[in-house]
């Protein structure tokens, strides 16, 4: 269903609030059919919010977006798809290690998708977000050093 909407009804995302409302419907469906998943999503959110300088916001295409300072770490749609942007090199490594799959829409980009389907996936999802967070933290620190030298 999600795949069908993303592939064929992609234009709907331009309607204000449509993506958020669609995501709420997914949440309601999970609440009625697989309520445990909502608990797992909360665990992921709470863990990320424990890291320094992180925050959450609503993703423009629906779901929870995790941020480090003002940049996005990744976002979790309410059907359990976690999308994270890495460099293409890191993405390839994750694909080779079978820790993630190519993004469900932008296959050729640095975006990866990870499907949270069971409790074990929560740890893996957090590990992927942490990897991205650490990379952003490192980049920010290096940037800080360069600025200090200037």
């Amino acid at each position, binding site marked *: 269903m999600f795949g069908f909407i993303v592939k064929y009804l992609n234009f709907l995302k331009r309607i204000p*609030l449509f993506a*958020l*409302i669609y*995501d*709420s*419907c997914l*949440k*309601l469906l999970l*609440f009625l059919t697989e*309520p445990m998943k*909502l*608990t797992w*999503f*909360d665990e992921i959110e709470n863990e990320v919010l424990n890291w320094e300088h992180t*925050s*959450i*916001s*609503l993703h423009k295409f629906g779901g929870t977006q995790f941020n480090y300072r003002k940049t996005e770490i990744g976002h979790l749609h309410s059907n359990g798809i976690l999308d994270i942007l890495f460099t293409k090199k890191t993405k390839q490594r994750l694909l080779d290690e079978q820790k993630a799959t190519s993004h469900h829409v932008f296959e050729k980009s640095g975006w990866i998708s990870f499907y949270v389907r069971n409790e074990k996936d929560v740890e893996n999802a957090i590990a992927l977000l942490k990897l991205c967070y650490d990379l952003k933290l490192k980049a920010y620190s290096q940037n800080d050093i360069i600025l200090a030298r200037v």
Partner: protein
Amino acid sequence: MKIFENKIFLGFLIPNAILLSIIGINRFLNVGSAGVIVFSEFVILPMLIGIMSAWFWKDFKLSSKMLIWNSILNGFIAILLSFLFLGEGTICLIIVSPLIFAFVITGAFIGKVMFKKNNQTLNTSFISLLMLIFIADSLADHRYENMVSDEVIIKATPEKIWKNVVAFDKIKQPNTYWLFNIGMPSPMQTTVTAYKKGAGRKCIFSNGYVFDEQIVTFDKNKNLTFDIVNQPKDPEIMGHIDINRGQFLLQDNGNGTTTLIGNSWYKLHVFPTWYYDLWAESITRNVHLRVMDHIKVLSEK
């Protein structure tokens, strides 16, 4: 009283009280045209309920499950208040409930993120924008008319079918449409004062409600068109939909069968039409089919 200091309880009470007041004031001032329910009453206001509730609950760090559960409860309260104070009918509320639940939950999650960030300027701007959309939508002109057409093939000549089209005895077949089965009135019988143009026609529904009609075209064996001159004051339809005209066309297929076409024209007073017209079309279609299937049974005897 301690209960009024309980913020969880206030998260249910205050948003619903505000919503009821806004709708009440809106109707009292008769903004727009009488009886019209604008899209923002079903979209913006439920979303505001969710956002306001999230503000009351922001210190409790509610889990997603709890937030959804509370939002469902909030939706039920809003629906119950609409039933008690706004005189909405049960079927109407069943139709509207998916929108209410979806938008209250959306509002609650928007509110959760808004109040986590605690950016007062952004929050005030967003709520002001929603209120502005609501006011603009209330003042805007709302018109929507549609026609639904259905056809059935009957193994009989137009001459044999015609008298069953103009008037027919009680429909005895059981209902198959789910809304009729849960209490929505379905067409039962049609009577006519004379078989000519200008005659009065009555379409009687299962709960005794009567649509008064007047025949405006009486082209024997071909075309029966009638205007609805008076429709029942039922909360399910009052102010929500006006059925303006009905029509039966008979086309002789030349092989002993006839195509019977049923057309209805209506004006919708509830918005957004992308949602309500789906229901209006479905209901009108099932009214058509119940009558036309009955005409088919009578004519093929």
